Each structure stands twice: as structure tokens, then as C-alpha cells.
């Protein structure tokens, strides 16, 4: 178990390193850099000025050197300066993280609380009308673009309450905070719960086909005990790994949902930074997203290994 942990951790670090190189190279593919954008706005390009700005921003160094600068700074907690606001990048990113984190947490809880039970019901009542209805419902949930669902929710809000839900920095009280986050979280969470429902259903069906379930049934165990004591416990194992996939899925949904609801989170910040060709910001944000996803998957792997005796007691 210990060796497994160490190996997976090492793999995680290698993956993160590879991603950083990938991001760095991709962002340098584009012709033109931030200096070009700054001068485009001005309209006039004096080569001497441009050269000066490029030197100031470190853009005239070779690519590997720029990369080394970035990674070196990262390891020291210095994320560079934002080209757009000229404040340290860390200062821009840190306050936005809790907002997105809260949104993600509520959306994830939403998707688990709704998706898992519905998936179980769908599997237990396979091929009934209820099952078909739930399958069509989850499929339509997955087919809707997350931003469209957000826009529809906005529409309903405007029709009912005459105003769009406005994000505020100083909400009054705990429940108001939950309410304020719930609306966008519902928009993101609906798609995630659809995914969770489908995956729980398939996992449950897989388990219900097993011989030991048939044995339990032939021994006369009551149906609800079979479903919830024997089947669900084993079906939940793959669902744990599914939560890892969910994290990636959620992040994609958060990007567009934060844009629709105008929430100043990390995900929306990524889009803003890209529009500005603000390299330090985009690099750091994408690295942050990668670290979050990879860490969550690593944690899921460890949890899975701890819970599944087949992995825990040797491979």
C-alpha cells in the first residue's frame, strides 16, 4: 500500500510537470504577444518602445528561459505579475478561489444527493416506465449546454422576481449565502447529477447481475436488504472514482456558468485572462485547475485503495 502511494504520488508530480510544459508551449503558439495587444490599442507601434516593453515583461528571453523563470517563481509562491492589472498574480487569484470552491462544493453535493438515489432507483426498477423516464431525463440533462440552462434560469428569475440574481460580496447571513450560491450551483449541478445518475445506474446494474446477489435472493433475503446492503455498497466503489471524473466535468460547467451569472470566481477569470492574452494569469490559472483536478483524482485513488480490500491487501 505504501509503495502504491509513493508511486502514484510520483506519477502525479510527473503529470503536473508535463502539463506545465504543455500549457506553456501552447500559449506561445499564437503569433503576437501581450506587447502587440497593448500597442494595438494605442494604434502606433514604435519599435524602440515595443522592444523596451518586451524587455520589461521578460518576453525577449528565450522560451526555455521564460519557462524556467515561471516554474522557479511558482515553486517559491511567486506567480508573477498580471499584465492587465499590474498587481501580483497571486493577489488576483487567491480571493477568487473560495467563491468557485463554494459553488463547486454545493454543485457536487447537489449532484450526489440527487444523482445517486435516482441512479439506484433506476437500476433497481430497470426497464420500467420509471426507469425510462429517469433515463430520458438524465440524457436531456446531459444534452443541455450548461450556459443555456443558466440563461433559462435567469429568464425564470426575471419573469418571477423581476430581477436577475445578483452576486454580492457581503451577503447577510449563512442561509442567504447558500441561497445566493444555490441558483448557479443548480445550473451546474443539474448536468453533473445527470452524469452521476447514469454512472450509478450502470454500476448498480453491473453489481445486480453478480452471482452473490442471486445467492442472497435464493437464500430468502428481503429485496430491500439485497439492494441496499449487498448491492449498493459494492456499487458505490466505482461511484467514488466517478466523483473524480465529476470534478473535471464540473470545472468546465463552472467556466460558462460563472460567466452567465457574472460571478467573480476563478473559472470566469480564466476566460477574462485569455481575452487579454495575459500569459502569467492564464498559465497560473490553468496550472491551478490542473493541480486541483490531478490532486482530486489522486485523493480519489487513495480513497478507493483504502476502501476496496482487493487493492488494499496486495496486487
Amino acid at each position, binding site marked *: 500500500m505504501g509503495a502504491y502511494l509513493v508511486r502514484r504520488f510520483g506519477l502525479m508530480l510527473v503529470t503536473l510537470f508535463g502539463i506545465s510544459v504543455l500549457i506553456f508551449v501552447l500559449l506561445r503558439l499564437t503569433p503576437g504577444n501581450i506587447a502587440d495587444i497593448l500597442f494595438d490599442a494605442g494604434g502606433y507601434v514604435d519599435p524602440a518602445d515595443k522592444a523596451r516593453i518586451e524587455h520589461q515583461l521578460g518576453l525577449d528571453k528565450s522560451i526555455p528561459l521564460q519557462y524556467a523563470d515561471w516554474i522557479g517563481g511558482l515553486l517559491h509562491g511567486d506567480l508573477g505579475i498580471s499584465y492587465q492589472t499590474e498587481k501580483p498574480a497571486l493577489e488576483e487569484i487567491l480571493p477568487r478561489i473560495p467563491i468557485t470552491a463554494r459553488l463547486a462544493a454545493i454543485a457536487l453535493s447537489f449532484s450526489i444527493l440527487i444523482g445517486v438515489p435516482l441512479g439506484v432507483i433506476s437500476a433497481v426498477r430497470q426497464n420500467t416506465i420509471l426507469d425510462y423516464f429517469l433515463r430520458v431525463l438524465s440524457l436531456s440533462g446531459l444534452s443541455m449546454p450548461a450556459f443555456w440552462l443558466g440563461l433559462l434560469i435567469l429568464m425564470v428569475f426575471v419573469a418571477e422576481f423581476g430581477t436577475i440574481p445578483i452576486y454580492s460580496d457581503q451577503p447577510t447571513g449563512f442561509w442567504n449565502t447558500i441561497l445566493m450560491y444555490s441558483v448557479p450551483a443548480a445550473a451546474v449541478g443539474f448536468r453533473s447529477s445527470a452524469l452521476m445518475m447514469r454512472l450509478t445506474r450502470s454500476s448498480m446494474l453491473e453489481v445486480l447481475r453478480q452471482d452473490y446477489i442471486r445467492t442472497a435472493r435464493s437464500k430468502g433475503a428481503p429485496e430491500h436488504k439485497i439492494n441496499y446492503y449487498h448491492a449498493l455498497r459494492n456499487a458505490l466503489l466505482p461511484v467514488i472514482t466517478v466523483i473524480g471524473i465529476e470534478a473535471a466535468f464540473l470545472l468546465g460547467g463552472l467556466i460558462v456558468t460563472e460567466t452567465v451569472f457574472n460571478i467573480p470566481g476563478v473559472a470566469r477569470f*480564466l476566460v477574462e485572462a485569455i481575452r487579454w492574452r495575459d500569459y502569467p494569469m492564464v498559465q497560473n490559472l490553468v496550472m491551478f485547475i490542473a493541480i486541483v483536478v490531478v490532486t482530486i483524482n489522486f485523493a480519489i485513488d487513495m480513497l478507493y485503495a483504502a476502501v476496496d480490500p482487493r487493492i488494499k491487501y496486495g496486487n
Partner: protein
Amino acid sequence: MSTLDFNAELAAAGANVRSRWGAVRFFIRRYPLGAIGGVIMAVFVLAAIFAPLLTVYDPLSTNAAASLAKPSAAHWLGCDFMGRDVYSRIVYGARISLAVSLGSMLLGSSIGVTLGLLSGYLLGWFDLITQRVLEMMQSLPLLVMAIIMAAALGPSLHNTILAIAIPLVPYVARVIRANTLSLREQPFVEAAKAIGMSERRIALRHVLPNTLAPLIVLATAQLGSTILTESSLSFLGLGVPEPHPSWGRMLSESAAEYVRTAPWLVIFPGLAISFVVFGTNLLGDALRDLLDPRQRS
């Protein structure tokens, strides 16, 4: 114990299928949801192909007098703020969605199949390095990778196709590689080797055709997610630019501003996206049940 009606059982399993038409009838009867998905897909493709025949107005021509017109007999789905007919833009938008999704899926699949086959066949250091790189690409969410690529390449139709195709490669490559690895051990591959067939010939003529089933399943699933990714990119302003009518961009142009005054601008493009993706998902599910039950989800 009730007796089995053998003929009925056999018919249900498709035993008496004699013609192509019989095969279609079998599919419809066995997978009704999949058949519905197939019809939706057909409507989508036909609308894209015959767009000029199905619309009256030019999707790009503006008409200030008709700005924000409500749905009426003249403009079935209303007009946007520039007076462009929404119905025409949706029908022509099907062309864009079809082009981008088909293009990116074909490009991503061909690269993925090549990498997967090579990886599964050559093994060794090539396999090791390729797998690590693909794993890294898969660590980032699909939309994030597509956003970065789209931002790096710049907004254009071709770049959008590329930006969506590249992140798809790892998903295809891994499935093909897994299949290749298992197919290599099959007796018929061993037999082919024994009669002296070259590795390359075995790979192309024996292994590759047998990986088609999971590939088709994957491809139909990808179609839906490529359409969603393209619409998300266009919504964020990073995808297909003016003047192409993209469903996703139609939604960003009409965002919070017109939610109150012109709800048809929000409802119909989104409905188009959802409808088509729903169709691909239905068809994909049915094809998966038919061709590769092991992947059942």
C-alpha cells in the same frame, strides 16, 4: 413454467433479418429510443445540407426595421437585435455545428486511431511516452483544453475544429490501444503471423477492422460533446467568429440583456443545441448496446 415462443425470441434477437431494410426494421423495434435519435440526427444533417431550400431569408442580412421582432408569420422564430431572421440563422447554424463536430471528430479520431494502433502494437518506449503525454492531456477538462487551444490559435472555423479535435485524441487513442492490446493475443493474429504476414498488414487488415465497433460507439458519443464544446467556445467568444451563424454565439449575443425583452433569442438556439445533442446521445446509447455491450452505461 411457461413455454418459450422460440420464433418470437429469435425474431427479437434479429435472427430472421434478410435484407438491409429488415435490419433497419429490427433496429427500430429493438432500440426505439435509438431510432428516434437516428431520426433527429437525420433531420439535423438534412437541415444542414438543404438549408437554402428550407429558409426564405439570408441568415446574414440585417434589417433594422425588424430588430427584435417577435415570432410571427413573417419571421417564424423572430429576429435578433440586428433584424436577422432567427429561424434562418438556426437552420444555417446547423451547417456550422455539423461541419465543426464532424470535422473535429474525424480529425481527432484519425489521429487517435493511428496513435492507439501504433502504441498498442509497437509497445516499448514509444508506448510509454505516448501514454504519458496522452494522460497529461486528459488531466485537463475537455473544455479547458479546447479553450486554451482556441485562444492560442485564434478564432476561426478551422482553428475551432483543430481546438476541439486535439483534446479528443487521448480519449480515442486509449480505447483503440486497449482494444489493440487484447486483439494481439487472439489466435487469428497468431495464425496470420505464422503464415508469414507482415506486422503492418496484420495491423491494418486484421486488427484495425475489429476495433471499429468501439470506435463507432465512441464517435457517436463524441459527436454530442463536440457540438456542446463548440457552442461553449462560441458562447465565450473563442469559437466560430462572425459572420458564420453559430448557435452558441447566438446565445452569447442575446445573453442577459435580452432575457427580459426577447426570450425567443434565448430559447430557440439553445433548444436546437439540446435537441441535436439529445439525438446523438440516444443514437450513441443504442449503438453501444448493439455493438459493444461491455461498455454499457
